[in-house]
């Protein structure tokens, strides 16, 4: 590629060593990145006896999400219905193709697949939660389409406590282990926001105006 590509050739002329040596250096660096600097604040909270899910919940709320805790998958389904009632939500719903996300199916019209744009509510399933930033990890798949994360005004996301990890680096191995990298991985931290008019914080520009996270345990 270097031979025929004028941009790469222009770069190569200024670099030290041979092209082969640079390729080897880059390959080595990619395969073995240096030890990351992790945030000590997370480790300190864990040392106090708090769980990853506790830390995740606190930091996600700081970013404007509302976190609901449930002891078991069954309780999570009940929590979804309670959110529906308390927030007086109405359908249609675009939801993940996942039994837990079907909890409100008898309350409104619900469908799986891509969002059309006319659904006020999206119910999604997170692949992971990242405690250091309170971020949800939503991975594109047939069951969990990306459009459902952005088009509805209210986004409700179900997350298992067991899927909460401490830092970004703890999720990457899961991603690397896949045979096929998904087209899109969304790390979502709170609702949509802007400061573009007079640097005044406003919630709900193009994406969801509210983000509810239901973090559930295994019931033991």
């Amino acid at each position, binding site marked *: 590629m270097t031979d025929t590509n004028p941009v790469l050739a222009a770069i190569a002329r200024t*670099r030290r060593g041979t092209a082969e040596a640079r*390729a080897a250096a880059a390959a080595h660096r990619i395969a073995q990145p240096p030890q990351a600097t992790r945030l000590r604040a997370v480790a300190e909270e864990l040392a106090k006896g708090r769980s990853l899910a506790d830390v995740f919940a606190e930091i996600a709320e700081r*970013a404007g999400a509302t976190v609901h805790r449930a002891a078991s998958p069954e309780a999570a389904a009940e929590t979804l219905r309670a959110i529906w009632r308390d927030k007086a939500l109405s359908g249609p719903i675009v939801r993940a193709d996942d039994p837990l996300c079907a909890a409100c199916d008898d309350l409104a019209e619900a469908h799986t697949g891509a969002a059309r744009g006319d659904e006020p509510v999206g119910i999604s399933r997170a692949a992971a939660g990242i405690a250091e930033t309170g971020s949800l990890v939503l991975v594109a*798949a047939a069951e969990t389409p990306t459009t459902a994360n*952005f088009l509805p005004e209210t986004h409700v996301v179900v997350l298992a406590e067991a899927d909460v990890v401490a830092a970004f680096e703890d999720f990457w191995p899961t991603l690397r282990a896949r045979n096929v990298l998904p087209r899109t991985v*969304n790390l979502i931290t709170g609702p949509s926001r802007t400061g573009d008019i007079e640097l005044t914080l406003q919630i709900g520009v193009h994406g969801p105006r509210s983000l509810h996270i239901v973090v559930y345990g295994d019931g033991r």
Partner: protein
Amino acid sequence: MSAPTRSHFVRDARGALADTKLRAALLNIKTMFRNGRARQVAAVPEFEELRDAGAALKREVIDNLDAYLARFAAEAESRGAKVHFCADAKDARETIAAICREQGAKLVTKGKSMVTEEIGLNPYLVEQGFTPVETDLGEYIIQLRDEPPSHIIAPAVHVKKEQVAETFRAAHAELPPERDLSTHDALLAEARAELRARFLSADVGITGANMLVAETGQMVLVTNEGNGDLTQTLPKCHVIVASIEKLVPSLDDAATVLRLLGRSATGQHASSYTTLSVGTRREGEVDGPETCHVVLVDNGRSAMLGTPFEDMLRCIRCGACINHCPVFVNVGGHAYGAVYVGPMGSVLTPLLRGLESSAELPFACTMCGRCAEVCPMEIPLPDLLRRLRFEAHDHAYTSKTSRLGLAVWTFLGERPKLMRLAARLGGAMMRLPGAGALRRWPLAGAWTAARDLPVPEGGGFVARANAKNGD
């Protein structure tokens, strides 16, 4: 709006200083961005370690840039993207327009991208018959006002909400004219509704990228509004435009940059949306683009390699230097007459556009050094600005008066005895009855216009140093 082609900083800064509306708008930067960053950094005692790691990983990328670009391109292409290397702005504009044409596109939505401002993409797309619509709220506002951005992360920071309301009334003529647009919420709701329709009907979505991950071919896009995600997910074709220095080696390195970026930029521990995406929708996936192009733009960057300005290629466009610059927060972005503003812009603009059309920019700086202190990539911005000053002087882009003044200073500086005599004489004259502080200094009128040189007290530096050493 085309990219500005020439800076008249002295003239335009004077105008900006007299603009009370603008200066009121700029005050928000101090309270929001500076305080926000300070709070975040205080909560992360290891922030300096993160800065070291960030600078190191970018140095590594720059040292082996061709290798990382080749790896990125191979990974992205294996996942359905087509990668285009573009040597200059024209090449990039034409490549993007050709993609739009191939898609039979009319409406093109855009996420905020500074490099598309740099290459003058929007006016070119319009000229070629396409309708580009900016979807970041700030970019949308300035697109409607036909202005360039005045800040790299808050492009409409110079606009007051009353002006936004006027702009929306003019642009959204189909809405009832008597509607209330007096609140932030009303403006937001109107922009949301207007742009939602565009997101759903666009043929091509163009976004920038905060990072390109060589390991996986993914691009990382960091936004708060979600517009970048709607732009890259809904249309059948996604075009990513990124400059060649956006590479990071691995996902682990991306994590390091993410820890620095939000905290340095807006004072957030994380932005609302950080998206890693690559190529086209995978088999079985039900949304996402069916075609994906990555347009990699050089446009003067490879020429910075191997020069003292190579350090500038570490910049991640967080805007911390801009927010902390005492010059920027008083004059705003438009005075710079350039796409990139503040300290990073005053380095980058002369390098990308040529020093001749930007010669005043390296002097739009008090050398206070705050930009280098807050830069998450540890770029020595004041050193680079000083070096550009030397070059402006050497190429005679500076004024005759300032060069003559420096020549006199140099002449004296090389003759210590004469210098001491001149200093003693000058001091003595200023202490004469009726003399007092110097309000005008020959050949340094710009300096004394805003300052007085006070009457010296006691002896000069050399006399005092000698006295202290018992000489």
